[in-house]
Structures are given as C-alpha cells and as structure tokens.
C-alpha cells in the first residue's frame, strides 16, 4: 500500500455557473498578448500621439501666447482619426491569429466540447481584440478630456462640449467593433494568421484605392461607400458634429457599416463549429 497514491481522484469542489467561459477565453488571450514584447512596444508606440496631445493641451492651458494650440472638439476628432493607424496594426497583430490559430491546432473541438456556446467563444475572442483596441482609442481619448479639465483647472471646456464624452465613446466603439468583427470573420476563414493579416490589409487598402480611383474618374466623392475607412470617417464626422467630408449620404455609410458587421457575424456563425462539414 503506497503512502500516497498520486493517482486520479474525483473532484468534489465548487464549479462556476455556466455562461462565464468567455471571460476565461478573454483573460487567457489578453495575458498571452501582454507577454509578447513586440506587442508591448506597439502599444507604447500607439500612446505617443496621446503624449503629444497631452503636451499640447498643457501648453495651451498654461501659456497664453500658445492659445493657438487650445483644443477644440475637432482636436479630439483628429486624435481618434490619428489612432486609426494603430487600430489597423493592433487589429492585425492581435486579431489575425485569434481564430485562425485555433483552427490550425483543431482547438475548436476542444473549446466546443466544454460547456460553452459558440457565441461565448466568439465573445471571448472579440473581447481580447476589443480590449486592446479600446486601449489605443477610447482610453487615451477619455484621458485627454480629463487632462484638459485638469490642466485648465476648470470645467468650462467640458461644459461647452459636453457631447465629447459620448462622441469619443461612440466613435471609438464604432471603430473598434467594425475592425474587430471584420478581423474575427477573416480569421475564421483560414488556418494561417499570416494569410488573414494579408487579407485584412488587402481589404483595407484595396477599398481605399478603389475609392480613390472612382473619385478621380467620377470627380465626386459620392462613391466613398466603397471604402472601409471612408465609411467610418463619414459617420465619425457626424458623431463629432462636423460636416461630413464626403458626398455619400451618411445613412448609406452607416448602412454599409451595419452590413459589414452583419456579414461578419454570418461568416462567424458558419465557420465557428465543432466539426467542419465539407459537402
């Protein structure tokens, strides 16, 4: 008889309620990304525009001769637009492998044999990408607004531009949701994260190039609806109470964005399965 039998034992402990597996997936994904030095460098790089804007707000608030630098509502709109480039890179770095790597390792059948629904799996993966994208859009945007109040020592700017908080929130989330759903859908289409990254970059650049070509041919920007980023820019302009920059009606741009999200959900619904059926 052994002193201690290091064998299989039945488990009699506590079990979490169903429906929380997405948080496990999200935390595991976030921890995995934070462990990558290259990604941390990208995140730090993505905060440089925030530092520049913070310095700008500080100077404008403390040196009257630099009042030309004083922030307006448009400053925050420009900031969100500038962060678009980091949204692109973070989306590719974090998102390309989110489902593609699981498909390569046949992990979907492991996930879906556990007590979680497909929607929980997708929510967990979305949460990973959205968390990092909000970290480079919404979080610095809101912090800039707070810094403005702190540096100016008054709420007058905030009171005059109360819409900025919801505008920053709405614009950031819209940008992040579109990028996340699109990337996740593309990631579910392949087993190769590199291929997915190329596909995403290709889709962004190709639609932008097509918009440029069509604008040159027609002499009008009414065809901006063909561009992934132009549609976002158009809608975000309206959110920040600015004049839309293209001739495309805003509802059309909004409709294209909604259609893109719906298409992504449809792709995810078909591709995220425990068994792949080839007929």
């Amino acid at each position, binding site marked *: 008889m052994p002193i201690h039998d*290091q064998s*299989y034992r039945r488990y009699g402990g506590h*079990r979490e309620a*169903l429906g929380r597996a997405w948080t496990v997936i999200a935390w595991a994904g976030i921890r995995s990304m934070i462990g990558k030095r290259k990604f941390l460098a990208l995140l730090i790089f993505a905060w440089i525009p925030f530092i520049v804007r913070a310095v700008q707000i500080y100077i404008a608030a403390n040196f009257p001769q630099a009042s030309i630098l004083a922030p307006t509502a448009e400053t925050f709109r420009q900031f969100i637009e500038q962060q678009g480039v980091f949204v692109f890179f973070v989306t590719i770095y974090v998102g390309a492998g989110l489902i593609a*790597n699981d498909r390569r390792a*046949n*992990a979907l059948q492991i996930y*879906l044999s556990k007590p979680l629904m497909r929607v929980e799996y997708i929510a967990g993966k979305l949460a990973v990408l959205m968390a990092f994208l909000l970290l480079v859009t919404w979080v610095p945007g809101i912090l800039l607004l707070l810094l403005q109040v702190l540096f100016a020592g008054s709420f007058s700017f905030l009171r005059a531009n109360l819409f900025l908080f919801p505008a920053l929130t709405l614009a950031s989330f819209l940008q992040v949701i579109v990028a996340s759903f699109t990337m996740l859908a593309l990631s579910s289409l392949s087993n190769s994260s590199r291929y997915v990254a190329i596909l995403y970059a290709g889709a962004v650049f190709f639609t932008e190039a097509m918009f440029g070509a069509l604008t040159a041919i027609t002499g009008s920007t009414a065809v901006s609806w063909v561009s992934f980023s132009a549609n976002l820019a158009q809608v975000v302009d309206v959110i920040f109470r600015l004049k839309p920059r293209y001739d495309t009606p805003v509802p059309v741009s909004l409709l294209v964005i909604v259609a893109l999200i719906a298409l992504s959900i449809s792709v995810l619904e078909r591709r995220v399965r425990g*068994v792949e059926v080839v007929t």
Partner: protein
Amino acid sequence: MAESSAVVQLDHVTVTYGANRALRDVSAVFRPGAVGLLGPNGAGKSTMLKALLGFVRPDQGTMHVLDLDVAREPLAIRARLGYMPETDAHIPGMNAVSFVAYCGQLAGLPSVDAMQRAHEVLYYVGLGEARYRNVETYSTGMKQRIKLAQALVHDPDLLFLDEPTNGMDPKGRQEMLDLIRDLAHNKNVNLILSSHLLPDVEFTCEHVVVMDKGTVVTQGPIQDLKAPRGQVYELRVKGDEAAFLETLRAAGMECHATDEDVMRVFVPNGQNQRALFALATREGVQVRHLKPSVPTLEDVFAKAIGEE
C-alpha cells in the same frame, strides 16, 4: 424518455452531411461502465460522438446523455462530459499544464482548482515530467495523453474517447489502454471508446456497440455476443477452396477468412466436425488442418458487418 440504466441513448437518429447519410436511423443504448463503439473507418462512430456532443444536429431522432436531452440541455451535458478527439487538438502557444488548467476553467473549475487538477491529471496520464513543455513540441503519443488529460481535468461522469491509441507505439498503446481500463474499472468513470481496433475494445470494455455504414449492426455485452451459437473450427483445406466455401455456406455454415490461409467456420448447433469432413469428401478437397476454437470479438465483428 431515456432508460434510467443507460448513460447514453439514441432513438432513431439520422445525421446527414449534404447527400451523405452518416447515421441512418440509429437506435442504441450505452450502459454504465466501459462501452466500445466498434466499426470500420467511415462506419459513423465519430459522427455519433459529435452528434452527442451537439456538434452536428440530427435530421431526426432524439438523443439522451446522462438522462439529459442533447437538443435541450447541451451545456449541462458537456459540463459532465469529457471528450478526447480523434485528431491532434490543443490550444496553441500553451505549455501542457496551462493548457489542461485552461480546459478545466473552461469547464467551470475555479482557476486554483483547475491548476491543481491539471498537475494531478498530467501525472496520472504520465506527463508529469513534461508538463511545462509547450504542447506543440510533444510527440504523437504525448499528444494522445494530453488529449486524455484535458478530457479528464474537470472530472467528467462520462468520457468520449475517439480512437485514443491512434499513432502510438506498442508500449504507449498498452499504457493508454491500462489508463482507460483503470478509469472504467477503478475510478468509476463511464466511458465510450470509439475504435476500429478490436483488441483495444476487448481489453477495456464490457459492452460493445458495433456500427457499419451508418447503422448499428449489433450491441450488447461482449461475453454474450461471444457466446457460442454452435461450434467454431479453424480449417485449412487443399483443393477448390472457393467451391468448398460455397458448399459450406449452402449447408448453413458461416465462414470467415483470417490473415493466414486458415478459415474460421461456424458449425450450427446439432452438427459437428463430421459434417465438415462429409462436405469436404463430397467436394473432393483434403482437410489439412482442423482445430476447435472459441468465438472472438473479431468473429462477432465480422459476423455483424457481414464480412467474408
């Protein structure tokens, strides 16, 4: 309504992939303990397990697992199930202990308990020393073991093992079979072992469900299925073997070829070896070898799927 003594029950289940009917009106009962799901490749074994897991929705029929309806309570079922898939499967970028603990958390264990259980089951499956290695660096045999570990970590009431000895060397295969046998016989874990390997099923299971071409061709306790319904002989003859086989079958005797040049002949009750000699004499063939034998699971399998 599921039979209370069954851990899994299927009633008239049909599963179709496009034009291909993978399961055809399947009704089967899996009793507690270790049950073998036996059949040649393409028989529908994996499809059955995937349907029970809720991966594929049947076109018709009902399925119950642990007295729960698969269509209505898939999550409650999967919380009590462990699934070891046939193909290589892991979460990329994780070492073994993180992977197994992660699977435990996904199955509802608190993180501390999941980590503790991960260490325990990794030792149990023989990966204790390699538990901090990235799973992607594992050999085929180790990958089989880690798949078993992730299926076990949350202490399921029922295990689905899909071809668990695939790609393993003889020593590793025997160790895996010992583990499965230990789980079923000493740890009171119900399990369904899907395999096309008869010795694996015979070593680990008491019951068997035999499938072929999407249907269940026979099921029951292995001992009952192996019970002689007549006598079995090993026979080798010289002469027109094909004609002799036809004669035997015409006389109501089943004949199955083996890997060697020996055939196994089932002589019905009421007859004996004299009938074989009489038929051989009539056909003009020489009996070179005749030896009484006992039915094996292979015979049951061959008989069930109508193999000659």
